[in-house]
C-alpha cells in the first residue's frame, strides 16, 4: 500500500452511532478504509460489530453521524440504493435465496447489470437471450473463484455450510461493489477451508481492486490478511492499528480476557 492510496478512502464514517431505545449500541465510530484495503473489525460478542455492518448497509438508519461512500453521503438511501452505490455484504446467519439454484443466486447479485425490461423478459425478445447468456457466463466465472462452477444447478439450501458462505461472497461480489463487507466469513469452516478462504479474499481484493472489511473471530485469519484492524467493545472503538499493534495493545487484551494477563 502506498501512502497516497491510504489517504483516499472508499468508505469513511464520522461520529457514527445508533441508539435502540435508551441503549447506545454503537457510538463515535470513526473509520476510514482505503480503496484496496483489507480491514478487520473484531471484538467480543455483543460489541456491536454486526450492528456497524447493518448501519453501513442501511438495514438500520443511524441515529448520529454520517457515512461517506466514495465521496458521497449515503444519508437517506435504502439498502438497495446503498448496494447500487457500491457496498455489498454477507450475513452472519447465512441469508441465501434457499429455493433457487446456486447460479440464480449469483444472477440475482448481477440483477442491476442485466439490461432488459419486463416486456423483453416475458416475450423473450432477442435481447433477453443475449443478456441472459452474458449473465450465465458471468455467474459461472464468478463461481469459479471458489471452484463452485460445477454446482451451478444445485439448490442453494442443499449446499454444505462452508459452500453456502462462499456462495454468499460470490453473490455479494456479483453486485459489483467498491467495498465488500464480510460478516464472519470463516464461521463453521475447518482450518484448511479457512486457509483457502484467506487466499481467496486476498485474490478477490487484488483481482477486483476493491476494499474488504471483515468481522471475524478467527484471529489467525484476521491477523493473517488484515492490513488494519479496529477493535470494538461495548459499541466503542477501543483500538485501531496494524495487526502487530493490536496484538500488543493492553486494552484489547483486557477486553478479550477481562484481566491483564499474558496473551495466550
Amino acid at each position, binding site marked *: 500500500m502506498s501512502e497516497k492510496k491510504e489517504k483516499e478512502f472508499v468508505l469513511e464514517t464520522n461520529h457514527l452511532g445508533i441508539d435502540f431505545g435508551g441503549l447506545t449500541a454503537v457510538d463515535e465510530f470513526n473509520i476510514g478504509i482505503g480503496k484496496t484495503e483489507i480491514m478487520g473489525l473484531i471484538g467480543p460478542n455483543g460489541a456491536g460489530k454486526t450492528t456497524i455492518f447493518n448501519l453501513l448497509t442501511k438495514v438500520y438508519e443511524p441515529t448520529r453521524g454520517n457515512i461517506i461512500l466514495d465521496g458521497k453521503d449515503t444519508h437517506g438511501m435504502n*439498502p*438497495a440504493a446503498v448496494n447500487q452505490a457500491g457496498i455489498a455484504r454477507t450475513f452472519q446467519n447465512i441469508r441465501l435465496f*434457499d429455493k433457487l439454484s446456486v447460479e440464480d443466486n449469483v444472477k440475482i447479485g448481477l440483477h442491476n447489470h442485466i439490461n432488459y425490461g419486463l416486456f423483453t423478459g416475458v416475450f423473450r425478445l432477442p435481447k433477453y437471450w443475449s443478456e441472459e447468456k452474458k449473465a450465465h457466463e458471468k455467474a459461472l466465472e464468478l463461481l469459479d473463484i471458489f471452484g463452485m462452477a460445477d*454446482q451451478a444447478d444445485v439448490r442453494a439450501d442443499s449446499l454444505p455450510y462452508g459452500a453456502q458462505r462462499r456462495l454468499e461472497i460470490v453473490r455479494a461480489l456479483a*453486485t459489483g461493489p467498491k467495498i465488500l463487507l464480510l460478516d464472519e466469513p470463516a464461521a463453521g469452516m*475447518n482450518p484448511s477451508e479457512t486457509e483457502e478462504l484467506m487466499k481467496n479474499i486476498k485474490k478477490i481484493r487484488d483481482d477486483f481492486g476493491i476494499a474488504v472489511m471483515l468481522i471475524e473471530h478467527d484471529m489467525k485469519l484476521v491477523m493473517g490478511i488484515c492490513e488494519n484492524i479496529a477493535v470494538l467493545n461495548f459499541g466503542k472503538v477501543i483500538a485501531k492499528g496494524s495487526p502487530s499493534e493490536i496484538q500488543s495493545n493492553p486494552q484489547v487484551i483486557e477486553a478479550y480476557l477481562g484481566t491483564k494477563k499474558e496473551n495466550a
Partner: protein
Amino acid sequence: MNNKSKNAFLNYGLVIVFFVVFQALLSTGNISSLLKGLLVPMTAYMILAISLNLVVGISGELSLGHAGFMSIGAFTAAFVEGVILNNIKMEGPLSKNLGVQILIFVISVIVAAVFAAIAGFLIGIPVLRLNGDYLAIVTLAFGEIIKNIFNCIYISIDETGVHISDKNPSLDASFAGKMILEGPQGSVIKKVSIFAAGIILLLLVLIIVQNLVNSKAGRAIMAMRDNRIAAESSGLPIKKYKLMAFTISAAIAGAGGALFALNSTGITPKQFDFNASILILVFVVLGGIGNMTGSMIAAALLYILPEMLRELDVQKYRMLIYAVLLIAVMLITNNEKIRALAGRVFKKKDKVSVKPEAGKEA
C-alpha cells in the same frame, strides 16, 4: 436452465393434450352436456389458479381477495360486450356471427386485464406495505369491498352514451336504455367464449407467467420471497417487484374473470365473494404452492369433482365427499412415506445431491 424450460414445455404439452382430449370428446359427442358446460369455467379457474400462484407461490404473499380481481374482469367483460353490441350492426343473432364474437372476446379480455391491473396496482400500493397475515386480512377486505362496490353500481347504456349511477335507473318510468350492470342482480351476458378460446388464453397466461419466472424480474420476485433482507442488500428495489407481481397477477385474474363471464348467461357480484377466493386458494395449495402444473391439475379436478358428484346417486352427500376428499389429498400429499415413494417413482432431476467435498466443515 434446462430443467426449467423442460418443465415449462411439459406444462404447455399438458394443456394441449388436455385440449385435444376434450375437443375430441366434444366433436364426437361423447361428453355429457353437464361436463361440456363446465369446460370453459374450468379453464377460467385454471387461469385463476395460475394467477394466484404467482402471488402465493412465486412472490410468497398470501392473498385472500383474488375473486375481487376476477370480478373486475368479469364485469368489465360484461360492460365491453354491452358497449360493442350497442354500437355494432350485425345480421342475425350473435351466435351466428363468429367475427363479432371474436372481437368481443379479444377486446373484453384485454380491457378486463387492463382494468384489473389498474385495480391491482392501486390496491397493491397500500396493501404491500404489510406482510404475512396482515397482508392476507387486508386483501380479504379489499376483495369484499370490490364485491360490494359492484353490488351498488348500476350501469346503463342508451343513445346518449353510458350512464353510471348508484341508483337503479330502470325503476324510472322514462328509462329507455339497456342495463349492463344492475347492482346485486349483476349482468346478463350473451355467451361468446368457447373452449378453444379459453385454452388459447390459458396457454398465453402460462407462457407469460413461466417466462416471467425465468426472467430477471422473476428471479427478483423469488429472491424477495426467500430472503427479503438479502434481496434488498443485493440491490433489488423490492417494492417495485412486489407491486409488479401483484399487478400482473391481478391482470391475469381479470382476464380469467372475463373468460368466465363471457361463457355464462349472467353474472352477479355474489359469485365473487370470499368463498370464491378461498376456492382458488385451495387449488393453489392443493396443487402445490409455486407449482404451476399442480395448480392447473388441482383446479381442473376440484372444479369438476363436485359437479360430477351431482350426477351420481350420492347427490345428497356431494359436498361431504368433496370435503373428505380434500382432507384425504392433503393428508396423503403431506405424508412422508408416500412422498418418499413418489420421489422414488418419479425421480426428480433437479434435486441432484451435492458431491461430498474434500475437507467439509467441522
